[in-house]
């Protein structure tokens, strides 16, 4: 009794604060979930190495910030430039990692029409190789990031402070997600992706270059994943194993929204971020990672196709 | 009461906006060789899939009555339960377990209705051994019956088309069904194999006492075997009757428009 009443009163107090944190996390999950969903759309595969794409983006932008900021306090103009550069470099690193991954771990198997299990194993191998490689090259300890901006409170909602960090995440995230949505819906390349997702055979007969489309899918998903890595690392820094948990959550988010469905990934990401954030009011914080898993198993039991249903072709 | 094996009442099956079966009503008597014909896309395989539990029609009822008079409602049942009730099938594009031998393929059918038995299997208990002996014997008999004894240790993938068809029939029969659903058994076989197949299907009914429900494009085979036919077009039953009646039915000829006057046999090409 008292457990719930007391927790509910905390919840009431912290509602807005938790909501802000949840939305910010949710945006990051959504950006990672997009990568899962897009690859799933064209290959019908869960890209197990997506966590390392996220890590790649985080490390690249970490070193960039180290070079640019290097312990100084950036001015407002500098902050804007640094964030933009961080997004670009993180995204490019993610895209590059994704492209390499597709080339090395997927394409040779695709060439000989390997069974599905082979792709999963190869991707797991790639994931383990990559993060341990980062661990070897950059050390196995947590490194804190030089923040590209001062994390002041910008304004408050109902008494809950909203810091610069949350605003940056939401702005960058919204720009990324909207442009991706538009790109897939409107551009010729985007149409190619949708065509392959719907029916690869017909698409290839219609002159869509399957290999290039698949690479492009990895690159787009990788870019968003890399940017997410950058945003995620700003407050907590980087460590070689950092990709695992957020990626597992992002995958849960993709399933929650309906895997293969772009907008589903966004909805799933936001929802998961918020649910997870609110759960802190009820459970001990150490169990926060359990929430995403519980959501995943529940969705799979109750509605395995997710909220919006699975389908990349129709989503955009 | 008529001793019906299958009673299909007003079955409608949709995929999104596409109506695959539209208010289909038909029945099969016990011991009958019944054929379902119709142009490509008429819904024949969808009907098979509905009869075996692969698809779940949105409307209507499908009742299967076994030899003891027990009635099963098929709709909503999973395929393995329909199989356990006594319905066996083959597939349009043959689906053997191609990495296994002919013998193993049939044996899987022969032993699939037994209980779990993992513990017995691990310890190789006497009951498991007895089971193995029994399934082996049943498998040998069936391979003999379909004439594949000499190829029993061959990998299924290396069999030719006619042999694959016979293997599929043997495998389905191994589950000891009361009715065998054959989805275009003659597809891809040569004329000699077709004759053998016709003979085999008739023997299945006469010697093993298994009713036959047949989808086939080859009219020669259908007319030689079937005692009664249903004609499907665009998901609806447009005609039924004996082979002679069907041949003379103007609606059927209409459905097969473009067929020459040698009749609907042209369709098989």
């Amino acid at each position: 009794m008292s457990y719930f009443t007391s927790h509910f009163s905390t919840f009431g107090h912290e509602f807005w604060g938790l909501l802000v944190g949840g939305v910010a996390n949710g945006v990051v999950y959504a950006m990672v979930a997009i990568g899962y969903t897009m690859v799933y759309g064209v290959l019908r595969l869960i890209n197990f190495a997506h966590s390392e794409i996220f890590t790649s983006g985080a490390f690249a932008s970490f070193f960039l910030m180290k070079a640019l900021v290097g312990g100084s306090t950036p001015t407002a103009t500098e902050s804007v430039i640094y964030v933009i550069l961080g997004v670009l470099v993180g995204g490019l690193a993610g895209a590059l990692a994704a492209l390499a991954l597709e080339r090395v771990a997927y394409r040779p198997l695709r060439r000989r029409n390997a069974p599905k299990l082979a792709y999963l194993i190869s991707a797991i191998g790639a994931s383990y190789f990559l993060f341990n490689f980062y661990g070897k090259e950059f050390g196995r300890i947590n490194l804190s990031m030089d923040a590209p901006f001062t994390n002041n409170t910008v304004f408050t909602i109902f008494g809950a402070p909203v810091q610069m960090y949350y605003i940056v995440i939401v702005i960058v995230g919204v720009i990324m997600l909207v442009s991706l949505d538009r790109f897939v819906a409107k551009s010729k390349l985007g149409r190619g992706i949708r065509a392959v997702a719907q029916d690869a055979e017909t698409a290839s007969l219609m002159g869509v270059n399957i290999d290039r489309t698949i690479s492009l899918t990895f690159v787009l998903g990788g870019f968003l994943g890399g940017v997410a890595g950058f945003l995620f690392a700003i407050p907590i820094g980087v460590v070689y194993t950092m990709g695992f948990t957020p990626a597992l959550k992002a995958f849960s988010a993709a399933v929650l929204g309906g895997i293969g469905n772009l907008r589903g990934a966004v909805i799933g990401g936001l929802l998961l971020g918020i649910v997870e954030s609110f759960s802190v009011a009820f459970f001990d914080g150490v169990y926060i990672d359990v929430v995403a898993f519980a959501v995943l198993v529940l969705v799979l039991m109750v509605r395995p196709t997710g909220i919006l249903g699975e389908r990349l072709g129709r989503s955009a | 009461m008529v001793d019906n094996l299958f009673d299909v009442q007003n079955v409608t099956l949709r995929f999104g906006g596409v109506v695959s079966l539209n208010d289909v009503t038909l029945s099969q008597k016990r011991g009958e060789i019944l054929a379902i014909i119709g142009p490509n896309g008429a819904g024949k395989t969808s009907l098979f899939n509905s009869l075996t539990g692969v698809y779940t029609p949105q409307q209507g009822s499908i009742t299967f009555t076994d030899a003891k008079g027990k009635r099963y409602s098929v709709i909503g049942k999973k395929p393995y339960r329909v199989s356990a009730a006594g319905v066996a099938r083959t597939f349009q594009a043959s689906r053997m377990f191609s990495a296994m031998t002919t013998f193993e393929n049939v044996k899987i059918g022969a032993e699939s209705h037994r209980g779990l038995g993992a513990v017995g299997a691990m310890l190789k208990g006497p009951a498991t051994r007895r089971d193995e002996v029994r399934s082996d014997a049943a498998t040998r008999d069936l391979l003999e019956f379909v004439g594949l004894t000499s190829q029993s240790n061959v990998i299924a993938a290396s069999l030719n088309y006619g042999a694959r068809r016979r293997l599929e029939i043997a495998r389905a029969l191994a589950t000891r069904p009361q009715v065998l659903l054959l989805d275009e058994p003659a597809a891809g076989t040569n004329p000699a194999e077709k004759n053998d197949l016709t003979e085999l299907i008739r023997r299945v009914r006469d010697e093993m006492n298994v009713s036959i429900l047949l989808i086939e494009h080859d009219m020669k085979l259908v007319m030689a075997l079937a005692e009664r036919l249903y004609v499907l077009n665009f998901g609806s039953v447009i005609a039924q009757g004996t082979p002679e009646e069907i041949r003379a039915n103007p609606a059927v000829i209409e459905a097969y428009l473009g067929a020459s006057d040698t009749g609907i046999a042209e369709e098989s090409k």
Partner: protein
Amino acid sequence: MLRVFQHHMVKRVAGAILIGLLVLVMTGPQGNGSEPTSGFTGSFSEHMSFFGFFTPPRWITFALLALVLSLLVMFAKYSHRAWRRAQESGAAAARAVASAAARVKYVRSRRSGRYSGYALLVLLGIFLPRIITSQSWQTNIVQLVAVYILLAIGLNVVTGFAGLLDLGFVAFYAIGAYTTAWVTGALPTSPPFGIHFNTFFAIPFAIILAMAFGVVLGIPTLRLRGDYLAIVTLGFGEIIFIFANNLYGITGGSTGTNQIPYLSVHLGPLKYLWGLTPQPYYYLTLAFIVLFLMIFSSLEHSRVGRAWVAIREDEVAAESLGIYPLKYKVMAFAIGAASAGFAGVITASQTLFVTPPTFSLSFSINILVLVIFGGMGSIAGVVVGGLVIQGFVVYMIQSPPAWYNPADLYMYLGALLIVMMIFRPAGLLPSRRRLREVTQVESGVARDQMLTHIGPHNRVEEEL
């Protein structure tokens, strides 16, 4: 100008150089975050001995190694061709060798041949402690080779026989180990019925508990596509870790417990205590490996094993024959879980402690590597794969060469997984069925649902 890169030979050489550079960096010195390039530059500039002849910078050593390797490959190709020619020209010796090779293949394919192979392995196992007498070697062999092989044989049922990817295998292993601690009264929470059981009693408890978890987790997940299982089990492994780490009152939290008693027998006059020296545990584990080999081998060749193959090959056809796929998948999953739980008992009672870090997810991947490397579905392959890889791991722990850092183990294992999938997906000693499946899928014989759908997944089957 760019056309030159399209050329076959150029591509090959460029690929080889890239791989060489990668290996150079992989085996190079440990870098760090404050000087992110130090690992890379050190890989080139540090000195490394070339077979003890001289010690140039690493990149020169590697270039020389590459040269030697390519000469060897060329020589192998040449001699293979010469060998072919000799065979064709009918040299008597060549024919004799060829027929001997065919004979070996034949013996291996026959049942008696297989059994004598197993017998040889068992004999080797029995005499191994006489050959390797060092205590630390023996301890490592028990903990890192024998127990890992035991686990790999269990995972092989799940991944090899039933074709399911279980990445949370370690969770069941942890359940087994914690159950051992619980049953023997080593945890903060009181043991079942308040009795401190003999360690042997942990075995049935562990098997039943692990199996129960397997069934509960398996039923909702195994209904769905195979890759969901992989990710759910991955999450489950992590969850078990979090709980073990945080439920202080039950599991002892991050410090776990070190109060587990050795396995022991007290039956009237019969008294025996395993422990102190590694040998008794070694033989006990060996006995269980042989037992597992026997029961899982009969399982493979039973009705159940055939049903798994049928489901792996064509689930729709299998179901049309009355096989309920979910039932058999859950069964495989539960058997795998039970054997991992069992292995957990062995480990816990030998090391006497359980702590959460023992059960990191990497552990599952390590076991998976053994199964993949040896050959999915091939019991002999899994044993040999386990011997080779874990033997190598132990060797690297006992006498590490300068270039090897034990922390990099998973980097190498990850790379190995990719290489295996690209070049030898059926493994070192493939099971014959698997090999057929792989080759048939790849030549397009088998049904398309075995393939990765690069195409419509919701296409209505066949005819609509």
